[in-house]
């Protein structure tokens, strides 16, 4: 097993759904050095800034998106000793309870995988070029960025 495989980063931006089990398998298979795998999945909630939400549309800046996510993962790798990292973000139209984002991190010991995963999400939330428009009875409304997300990213 080569070092590059061990330290593999996978970034995907797609309209299709993803499968947690398949992503977990890629983080785990042939990886006997890592004792910890942390996964995060973000889902479309039925209630948000515009009240009751029936779905949302995710716009992004295609030329920049993957580059931005790869840089965030590199920043995480410079802070923690982690193994494999996968980041998948969906774009386009999504319904309530659908999966939006997946972050998976493996590491030898648990703390690194926990912290790197949360760090990647906090930076994704404030730096990666995605914008959500919520669908509700009132019509479509752009989601406004939360100041608390800025604080979370700054606290690392």
């Amino acid at each position, binding site marked *: 097993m080569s070092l590059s495989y061990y330290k593999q980063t996978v970034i995907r931006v797609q309209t299709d759904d993803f499968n947690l089990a398949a992503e977990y398998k890629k983080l785990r298979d042939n990886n006997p050095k890592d004792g910890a795998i942390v996964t995060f999945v973000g889902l479309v909630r039925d209630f948000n800034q515009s009240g009751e939400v029936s779905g949302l549309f995710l716009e992004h*800046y295609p030329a*920049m998106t993957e580059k931005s996510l790869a840089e965030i993962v590199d920043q995480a790798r410079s802070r923690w000793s982690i193994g494999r990292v996968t980041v998948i973000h969906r774009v386009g139209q999504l319904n309530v309870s659908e999966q939006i984002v997946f972050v998976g991190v493996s590491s030898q010991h648990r703390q690194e995988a926990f912290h790197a995963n949360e760090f990647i999400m906090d930076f994704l939330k*404030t730096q990666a070029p995605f*914008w959500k428009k919520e669908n509700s009875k009132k019509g479509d409304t*752009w989601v406004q960025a939360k100041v608390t997300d800025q604080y979370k990213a700054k606290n690392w």
Partner: protein
Amino acid sequence: MLKILFFGQLKDMLKTSALELDWQQDNQTLDTVSKLRQYLQTKEQGWQEYLQVGKVLVAVNQELVQDEQVISDSDEIAFFPPVTGG
């Protein structure tokens, strides 16, 4: 030519998602984000407010930058609201 892009709510407010602009405008070169922003702010009704410093993020060639960032002819400059992915 500078390639200018707008995303998210900003795109809706400005009623355009992309435009091209000569790097040289009359009596000045738009060689920083700040100069480009100020030029755009005078272009249409309402743009003054929508493109205020602090209200929008700016990326030059797909990298987040500050207002002082130097820009060159043929750069891609994107203006957008604070991001809301995840």
